[in-house]
């Protein structure tokens, strides 16, 4: 018999943990979808490592949220429905092509890097951030190098990289509380990649309050099917 979803009382603190945790889990899951499909062996390892970092960060954050809500990390990941997820919409968008995947990883990782480095009033988040910021620095560098290679590469790779940045830009409004530092970090990479920086216009939002794109439900269906169908299943 399938398990029922949990319901949470979300204090602002729980919500702040879940926003970070869901960002990391959903992007980690998307990144892990490349496993077995990456364009070259080194990239296969890199994407699997990045996914592992993100899912590891998510676990620590869910454990912290679990201390406050009384739910295990597994329950938080597997037994919530899409409207209970607090991730930014950009995390759940399908991977698209390799350029889209790398452009998203850069735009998101720059925001994560700045978030972890800016510190928190909350000591639990500070402790998790101490570890996460080192990992995120690798993600920023890896994705920046790829975006530069693609943007400043062939006509085809340039077109794909520009299309990716253009399509992702309206989803970047949810990533930061303060946009200026993020723009200052992203702009030089786009410049080196010979890519046009899109103009800031209308931004998509809703992820933080549980209004998601249709893509999250499909992602969660795949992620949650096993623990929901076989509750308590272990390896």
């Amino acid at each position, binding site marked *: 018999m399938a398990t029922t979803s949990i319901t949470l009382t979300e204090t602002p603190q729980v919500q702040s943990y879940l926003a970070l945790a869901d960002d990391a889990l959903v992007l980690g899951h998307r990144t892990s979808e490349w496993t077995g499909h990456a364009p070259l062996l080194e990239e296969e390892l890199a994407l699997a490592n990045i996914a592992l970092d993100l899912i590891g960060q998510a676990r620590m954050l869910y454990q912290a949220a679990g201390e406050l809500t009384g739910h295990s990390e597994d329950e938080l990941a597997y037994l919530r429905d899409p409207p209970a997820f607090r991730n930014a919409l950009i995390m759940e968008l399908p991977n698209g092509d390799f350029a889209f995947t790398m452009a998203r990883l850069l735009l998101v990782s720059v925001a994560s890097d700045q978030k972890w480095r800016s510190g928190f009033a909350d000591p639990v988040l500070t402790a998790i951030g*101490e570890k996460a910021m080192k990992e995120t620095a690798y993600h920023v560098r890896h994705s920046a190098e790829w975006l530069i290679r693609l943007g400043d590469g062939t006509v085809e790779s340039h077109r794909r990289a520009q299309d990716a940045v253009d399509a992702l830009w309206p989803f970047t409004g949810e990533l930061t509380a303060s946009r200026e530092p993020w723009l200052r970090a992203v702009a030089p990479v786009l410049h080196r990649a010979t890519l046009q920086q899109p103009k800031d216009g209308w931004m998509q939002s809703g992820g933080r309050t549980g209004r998601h794109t249709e893509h999250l439900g499909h992602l969660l269906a795949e992620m949650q099917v096993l623990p929901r169908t076989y509750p308590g299943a272990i390896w």
Partner: protein
Amino acid sequence: MDLLERARAAAASVTDPELPPLTVEDLGILRDVRLDNGTIEVAITPTYSGCPAMREIAGAIEKAVRETGAEKVRVRHVLTPAWTTDWLTHVARTKLLALGIAPPEPGQGTEALFGRPAVACPRCHSTNTERISAFGSTACKALHRCLNCKEPFEAFKCH
């Protein structure tokens, strides 16, 4: 030896399943072993957020400490201060080299966006090397190659 000393020695001797010659003490992830109200409490620090070896290591520590006669054992994860490769002991660096893995240079943890620290080849010791990929077979290693002896090798990431 009393129970606490035996427990400490047992915990310290547990090895990393991904780098079997290295113990948790060599790696610098064993933070504390104490007796708390009849329970042996072992504190360890995760290396990488998603390192799959941490779970196995925690299990192995619990088993090893139990075998010394401790009835109640608890393994606690301490997140702060965060583990850094600067905590690798001298013994760890020697063991890594013997495995053909370039140890991290202390204090190189914060690379600039496009900076590349020189990594010495564990075979011929040349620093005429290049990085193939920042990500390797495990979260803690990167892929490099030596331009002098032409051998590929793994390097422990500065973290």
